[in-house]
């Protein structure tokens, strides 16, 4: 495949894609944990917020979410800032808008994964922790969370693969990630097929690497459950 010297452009785009995916993963996991905690909490208001969050975000296209956050955030941020007496124009950079949108979308799906994982932990363990005099926070940190990771890992792995592919959507708002760099190269060379196939190969490579990584992570997480051989 002749890339006519645009190979480095694609590589730099792939690097931005990877950064975008990993940042969204980190923020999205926090959203997911918060959402799941809200959904299983005893407060009615928190449960309603959690349910509304997952219902609305999971029913909305990711592209629409990216566009809403990028074009709509200025108005909201400026309205908030003017309350504090700051009246300059505010705009999110494409990267920040992309991370926000992707992590909100990832968080909504992760909420469901975490919630079902939380429910799978036997009640007796929580009761045991309470009987030992642990506070709610200690129980969560010492007993629940370490086990939630193990149960939630396969689901989260699938979500990460979806997230990796959804990063392509951020090209629509002008972030120079893989998809957009491919489009830039197409603009110069007029060879769309070549460059989109090249970009597709890089995406395939990234997903394959992630799948292999997830396989080893899962094996590591389940090392206590493999039994003797």
């Amino acid at each position, binding site marked *: 495949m002749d890339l006519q010297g645009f190979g480095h452009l694609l590589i730099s785009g792939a690097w931005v894609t990877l950064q975008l995916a990993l940042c969204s993963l980190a923020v999205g996991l926090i959203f997911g944990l918060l959402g799941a905690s809200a959904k299983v909490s005893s407060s009615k208001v928190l449960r309603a917020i959690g349910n509304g969050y997952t219902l609305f975000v999971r*029913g*909305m296209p990711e*592209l629409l979410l990216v*566009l*809403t956050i990028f074009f*709509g955030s200025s108005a909201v941020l400026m309205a908030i800032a003017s309350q504090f007496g700051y009246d300059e124009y505010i705009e999110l950079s494409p990267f920040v808008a992309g991370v926000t949108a992707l992590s909100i979308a990832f968080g909504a799906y992760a909420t469901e994964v975490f919630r079902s994982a939380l429910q799978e932990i036997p009640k007796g363990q929580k009761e045991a922790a309470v009987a030992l005099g642990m506070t709610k926070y200690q129980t969560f940190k010492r007993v629940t969370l370490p086990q939630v990771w193990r149960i939630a890992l396969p689901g989260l792995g699938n979500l990460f693969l979806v997230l990796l592919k959804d990063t392509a959507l951020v090209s629509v708002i002008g972030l120079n990630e893989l998809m957009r760099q491919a489009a830039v190269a197409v603009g110069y060379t007029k060879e769309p097929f070549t460059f989109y196939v090249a970009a*597709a190969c890089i995406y395939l490579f990234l997903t394959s690497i992630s799948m292999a990584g997830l396989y080893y992570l899962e094996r590591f997480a389940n090392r206590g459950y493999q039994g003797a051989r």
Partner: protein
Amino acid sequence: MNWDWTVIWENIPKLMDGALLTLELVLFSGLIGVLLAIPLALLRVSNNIWVRALPYAYIFFFRGTPLLIQIFLVYYGASQFEWIKESSLWPILREPYWCAVITFGLHTAAYIAELLRGAIQSIPKGEIEAAKALGMSYPKMLRRITLPRAFGIMMPSYGNEVILMLKGSALASTITLLDLTGMARTIIARTYTPLEIFLAAGVMYLIISALIIFLFRMLERYFNRHQHWPNEKPKGLDSQLLSKD
């Protein structure tokens, strides 16, 4: 920030037009997807590794790359080759509408094939053996036993796939189609009220998802009607069977 309700009310008819195109795209791509997925899944469960390899590569490509790249490959990529431009396919591949339908169909076919494969493999072995013992030929067994049973098993997860496709169809707006997202973007370009219109479009997507979920509940009930026996008896059954308790 001032929230503007009137701009939403004024543009609802336009958004409805967009929603109609979105529904059309999802329906056509779903039909193509199911038709393509059946042979793919049947090849995928073959015992021969060479027969299995082709659908595997297809599924690997379509599930491992973003839908956006696939739609650009079809819409922009096809024009790179002179022989496509000169062929009789060009009037179709020139139209963004058909490019979107083809891409979404190929894309969703890969996902449906994987669901169908899982469903075929989870049909109890005894049912297949019983069909063979009755002397059914392979096509007859497919038509009467394997496929109806597999559809029943995969129906709930297929509903999720249709909703994912509904959300994926928003990408049609990147190749100039005026689907729900595309329509919202053109309205915003004139009115500059991104929050109002995008959220209105989001609510419409939500309503469509709810309708799809309802539809699939009904479909699931239809395909798995044998599980509701004897409370609901199928129509056109032998009367002797019905009179027995």
